């Protein structure tokens, strides 16, 4: 890929930095009380209703297989054409430009939908591909 740098919303989750394209990040909200879902995978912490819509909350630390017992403060709501989801965040850094051509972080699993590392003022972060990840998570069952 030979695209130029794009604005990404960078956020920290249990010591690691992640980034989602700014145009896919619809909102940042405080983490509300969650409702657990029957038969859901462990990284799906639960759902909450937001502006008349049910949003599933994904714990990125569990998703990449490094679960951390931490109290998350915020969630980053991400919306793609197929649907919406929210990622847990301990701190939201802000919008930073990230280069388009970055290598994937893995071949299989969730890491196949992350690329990097990308250098931002706060450190190095992994850029998430929200469409791919949602597709992958929907397929997961």
């Amino acid at each position, binding site marked *: 890929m030979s695209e130029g740098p794009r604005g990404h919303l960078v956020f920290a989750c249990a010591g690691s930095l992640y980034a989602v394209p*700014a145009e896919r*990040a619809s*909102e940042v909200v405080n983490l509300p009380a969650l409702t657990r879902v029957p038969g859901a995978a462990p990284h799906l912490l639960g759902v909450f209703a937001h502006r008349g819509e049910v949003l599933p909350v994904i714990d990125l630390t569990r998703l990449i297989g490094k679960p951390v017992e931490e109290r998350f403060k915020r969630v980053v709501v991400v919306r793609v054409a197929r649907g919406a989801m929210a990622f847990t965040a301990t701190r*939201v850094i802000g*919008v930073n430009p990230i280069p388009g051509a970055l290598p994937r972080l893995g071949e299989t699993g969730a890491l196949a939908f992350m690329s990097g590392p990308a250098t931002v003022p706060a450190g190095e972060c992994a850029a998430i591909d929200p469409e791919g990840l949602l597709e992958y998570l929907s397929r997961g069952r």
Partner: protein
Amino acid sequence: MTTPLPPGRNRWMTNPSTLAAPLGVMIAVAYVSSVVTLPDGTGAAYVGVLLTVLVGFNIAADLFEQSRLRTVKGLGAGLIKPTPEALTAAAAEAAQAPDTTFFLALFAFMVGAVVVSGLWYFLASPPVIVAVRVGLVGSLVAPLTAMMANLLVLPRARQVLRELLDAGLPPESLAQVLPVRFELRRRLMLYSTVAVLTPMLMVADASLHRSTELLEVVKRQPDVVVARAVFEAQRAEGFGLLGALGAATLIMVVLCAWLTGSVLGDPLKRLGEETERLAQGRYQRGRLVMAEFETWAAATSMSAMETHLLDAVQGARDAARGIGEAAAELVTHGAQQEQGANEQSAALMATTATTEELARSAGQISANALRVSEIARGTLEAAQAGKTSADAFTGAMAEVRDGNQAIADSVVKLNKRVQQVGRIIEFIDGIADKSDLLALNAELEGHKAGAVGEGFGLVAAEMRRLAENVMTSTREIARLIDDIRDATNAAVMATEAGVKATESGAGLARKVSDSLGDIVQFANLSADAMQSISLATVQQQGGSDQLVAAMEDINRTTQKNVESARQMAVTQGELVEVSKELAQVVDTFGGRS
């Protein structure tokens, strides 16, 4: 130490009565055979009836006698335990036995005589007059037989009573069982009457009968010469018979008298022996001579007298011993008194010396007391100064305590303010957090708006930084508030400790002040007391001299006292000797009690 009653005493005691009956029968038969002419063919019947009645009555009488000696029999056989009650009952039986035998023999002999004559009359049909005479002869012998039986049983009854005493019968019980009866004279008269009257009646009867027979023979002879010859022959025969009868009577009377005398005299002889023993001073408890009537009264009285004498001797012995002990004690006390008097004398000498020493030291004390009095005055002044200082300290401590209390109150107020500030800071933090979130979303929207929203994004980013700064500051303030809270808590605790310390300090100062007040009071008192002592010592100095003189007087008196105590000891020693002699004299009355 008791000896049990030998067995068979019941039978042994009454055996003589069984012997007396045949003896009486023999006398009666001898008389009848020599005086009464039995009709031909009736002799065998007479002897048969006589033997049958003799044996039958003897057995019946014996059974009756034995039935009245059951306790004696049971004791001898060991069937009855020798309790005091049983022994007393046995004694009553034995004491009763001689009289029982007497009356039984009398009754049996009289009735027996009537029965014999009656039966003989019905069996052999002799002339009525002969049958009646035979019966009368039997009755005539009855009192003699009864008397003999009585006199023979009496010594044995006494023997059994003695054995009962040995078996443990209390002598006083025996005195109850055998009441004193003053009947000796009557009994002697009875015995004499029987012993004399029976042979007399027999002789009279024989003479009368013989005379009548002779008269009949003479009457039947018409020839005077023949009649005279027959009369002479018969009279010669009669004289021989009467002579024999007289001799037999004499023997009988002497025998009865001897028996009576020996039976009744034996206790008197024994009493004599006992009296002899008493005269020799060999007293013994529980000695009793068995006797009857007046002799028994004498015997029991003598026994009681001996018991009382023994008690008296024992009392005298105890008294002598008590006197001896008391005298010995007196000697000891006398010695102690003598020693005490000596010690007293020595002590008085020492006291005299001490008094002289006292008189000398009194002057010294007086001088010292004056010095102490001055020192006490100095102490008083120092204590008064100390009390003033302590009161000032107490006041200062009270001020410190009030100051501390004010600090404590202020700290508590500060703590409340700090908590209020903490709540405000939390509120500010919440607002900053919301501002941060709002600014973040604004930045995001600004970015999405592209170039148009670029400025908006910048403002939002600034706003975020501001919010973040606020949050950093609030975190810092929160930390400071925590520090202040810890510090104020420590201050509160320290102040409370300070308040307590000042309170206890103030308390101590009060105590010091009170103690110093007491010291002031005591110092005042001591100064007064010292002055009094000083005065008293001066007065005492004069008194001590007089005391020394008095002591010397006392000393002289005590020396005299020592001398008299020594004299008293000598007298008491003599008293001990006298009491020993008294004890020896008392001991000569009976070696034992």
